[in-house]
């Protein structure tokens, strides 16, 4: 399928994502303007506050966006899953350029002009409104322009908190090794950034002194004001509708199902979602949340359940050193989640998604490699690429390399997990740590090396569910019991492959898979 065909097929979805993206950018920029400009003005009046507040704004801008999302999710009013959290984060990033340029612009007004204004008997408010703001306007608008262009970029990450936008295509494209998706996400985002840059640049020019002298200026000005107002109204409408869709929690049998940001998690979430819907339960889907955000959201009561792996819960969240006994891991996770997070762990779904140490099939056959131990001598000539997750977690690279005495040519590259598959396929690296149920393993002719020293802890798939949800939704216990032991590793690989390689919609793949099972 070429890009053009892709666009024709996905036109509606793409437009929705562009709309969401634009809405997030405009709303957040608008809020940042409403907060930032008065703050900047205040700082020109209160010199003592200037450095502390600019310092805080500076620091806020350096917070990584995923960390900020994680921090925001549990907060009342500001947090949660979806557009609101994304907007708060975007506002945080947009504040610095707006505040700073307001301060710079106003303090930069010609000293003679300000003195004349005071000496003419203008009050401070009059000087601000009639002299300082008009003269600083083009500098202030530069700040707004910078903020907006930053927002267009950061908004792509908003997909990680379920806020939608073009990041959905970009993340999905990375995950599925799909250039059409990547392009369809990145191209409109880039165009949007250019358009924001250009249109605010025009407005800026209008407010500059050169712009003022030109005749016939009223039309251009009126047109840009009308455009801004119309766009703001559309954006407000969009957010209002988004807000309505988001009203969760009040309904009796509504269940919020979340997933992490990879295909398998989405499929597992969709399986439970459709099973619940088949029993008449209303489901609210909050898929593709980044990092550990689903955990934060579960604890904060923003979601009811999401698929997880026992090993991940055991090491990454409960922070225990890795162990290899599946039974012990499951029991410990079940007990601690009940005590600490008031959450239940469903029966295992029947398959494990452990780390799969992968090499190219050609290399494996040429060197006759079957186990990780056999690859250790080769590794001295190899480069490795690992996802951020694997590089940092207790049962990841540090322990793994020690257990096998592995050494590579240089420090392994740390990159997005999806990208490691691409890097391995294109000979950029020679060994990666993928997932054992990854659908592309066969498709890309990769070979999984056996964990012959049984280093990796068990990663049984389960659902983590808030205990109070069981009381609210009696059907849930039955659904989870039915899904126990119902998916094999091969089956999971096939489902993943249907989505990742055959580009089919997860909902459709799940519907097919559930059909015979629901009938019984």
């Amino acid at each position, binding site marked *: 399928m070429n890009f053009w065909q892709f666009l024709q097929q996905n036109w509606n979805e793409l437009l929705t994502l562009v709309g969401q993206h634009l809405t997030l950018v405009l709303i957040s920029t608008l809020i940042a303007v409403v907060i930032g400009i008065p703050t900047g003005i205040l700082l020109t009046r209160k010199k003592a506050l200037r450095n502390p507040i600019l310092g805080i704004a500076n620091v806020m801008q350096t917070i990584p966006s995923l960390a900020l999302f994680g921090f925001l999710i549990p907060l009342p009013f500001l947090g949660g899953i979806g557009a609101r959290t994304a907007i708060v984060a975007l506002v945080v990033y947009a504040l610095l350029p707006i505040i700073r340029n307001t301060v710079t612009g106003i303090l930069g007004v*010609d000293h*003679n*002009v300000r*003195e*004349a*204004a*005071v*000496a*003419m*008997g*203008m*009050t401070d408010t*009059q000087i601000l409104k*009639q*002299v300082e703001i*008009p*003269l600083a306007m083009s500098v202030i608008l530069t700040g707004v322009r910078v903020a907006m262009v930053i927002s267009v970029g950061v908004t792509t990450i908003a997909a990680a908190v379920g806020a939608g936008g073009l990041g959905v295509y970009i993340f999905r494209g990375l995950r599925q090794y799909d250039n059409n998706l990547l392009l369809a996400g990145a191209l409109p985002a880039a165009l949007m950034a250019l358009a924001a840059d250009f249109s605010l640049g025009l407005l800026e020019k209008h407010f500059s*002194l050169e712009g*003022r*002298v030109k005749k016939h200026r009223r039309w251009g000005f009126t047109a840009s004001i009308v455009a801004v107002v119309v766009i703001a109204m559309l954006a407000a409408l969009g957010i209002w509708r988004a807000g309505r869709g988001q009203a969760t929690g009040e309904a009796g049998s509504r269940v919020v199902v979340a997933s992490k940001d990879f295909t398998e998690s989405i499929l597992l979430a969709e399986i439970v979602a459709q099973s619940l819907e088949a029993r008449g339960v209303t489901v609210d889907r909050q898929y593709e949340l980044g990092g550990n955000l689903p955990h934060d959201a579960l604890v904060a009561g923003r979601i009811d359940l999401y698929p997880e792996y026992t090993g991940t819960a055991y090491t990454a969240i409960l922070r225990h050193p890795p162990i290899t006994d599946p039974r012990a891991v499951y029991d410990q996770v079940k007990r601690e989640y009940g005590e600490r997070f008031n959450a239940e762990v469903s029966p295992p779904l029947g398959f494990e998604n452990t780390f799969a140490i992968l090499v190219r099939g050609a290399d494996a056959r040429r060197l006759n490699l079957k186990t990780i131990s056999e690859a250790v001598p080769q590794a001295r000539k190899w480069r490795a690429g690992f996802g951020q997750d694997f590089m940092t977690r207790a049962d990841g690279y540090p322990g793994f390399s020690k257990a096998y005495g592995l050494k590579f040519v240089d420090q392994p590259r740390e990159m997005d997990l999806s990208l490691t598959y691409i890097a391995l396929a294109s000979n950029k690296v020679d060994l990666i740590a993928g997932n054992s149920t990854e659908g592309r393993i066969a498709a890309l002719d990769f070979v999984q090396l056996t964990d012959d020293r049984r280093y990796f802890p068990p990663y049984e798939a389960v659902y983590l569910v808030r205990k109070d949800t069981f009381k609210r939704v009696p059907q849930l216990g039955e659904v989870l019991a039915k899904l126990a032991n119902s998916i094999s590793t091969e089956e999971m690989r096939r489902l993943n492959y249907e989505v990742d390689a055959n580009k089919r919609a997860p909902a459709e793949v799940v519907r097919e898979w559930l059909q015979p099972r629901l009938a019984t």
Partner: protein
Amino acid sequence: MSEANNTALVEFRDVSYAVPALPAPILSDLDLKVERGETLVLLGESGCGKTTTLKLINRLYLPTAGEVLVEGRPTTDWDPIQLRRRTGYVIQDAGLFPHFTVARNVALVPSLENWDASRINDRVRELLSLVGLDPEKYAERYPRELSGGQRQRVGVARALAAEPPLLLLDEPFGALDPLTRASLQRQFVALTRRLGKTAIFVTHDLREALRLGSRIGLMHAGRLVLLETPDNFLNSEEEHARAYLETLKLQVEDPDGGSA
């Protein structure tokens, strides 16, 4: 209040002005009366305190000792906004608002005082004509479209707009070429005479002081060292005055007047 009309328009009583950052006061023990209708020129080199003296009058500064009276009232008793709107102020480079047209610049104080639109419009045209600018041609221009001399004329028009009894001028013609300056000086003399304005004019140019002032106050290192009519100033034996008069001789020998 009738008594107020008989008193000096501006009076300095033993005024000093100091800032903590500087060891010596900027202004020391200034006693000075400015009579209605006169043009007092404050003459002195940079940093002698003449600009500070001006700013004490319209309450841009408050004295650290003594008091400054305007129309018989200490500036500390005045509402600063009211005081400033009754005091025209002209500075070097005019300090015009670059984003206002000439007409809006001139109309500034009247519109702050909420005059009605037609009265403001009439006044702007009257003033532009008075300072020698054709309203038809210049009213809708922006300051950056004017020459330095034209900008300075607009500055004077702006200061006169709300008919203030007092004009403060801080080296208004300092940045202009000699011919434009001479022309503006002539107009200024005619204007203040015709309108009966009281003016306090700061300059470092002796010839300007002699040409414009009904009295010249010579300042040095924060003190008023001489206060005389131009004729008496020319014959003064005071050392700083003599130093100034020496420069006059040099300038006469130099036909370009380049150092002026």
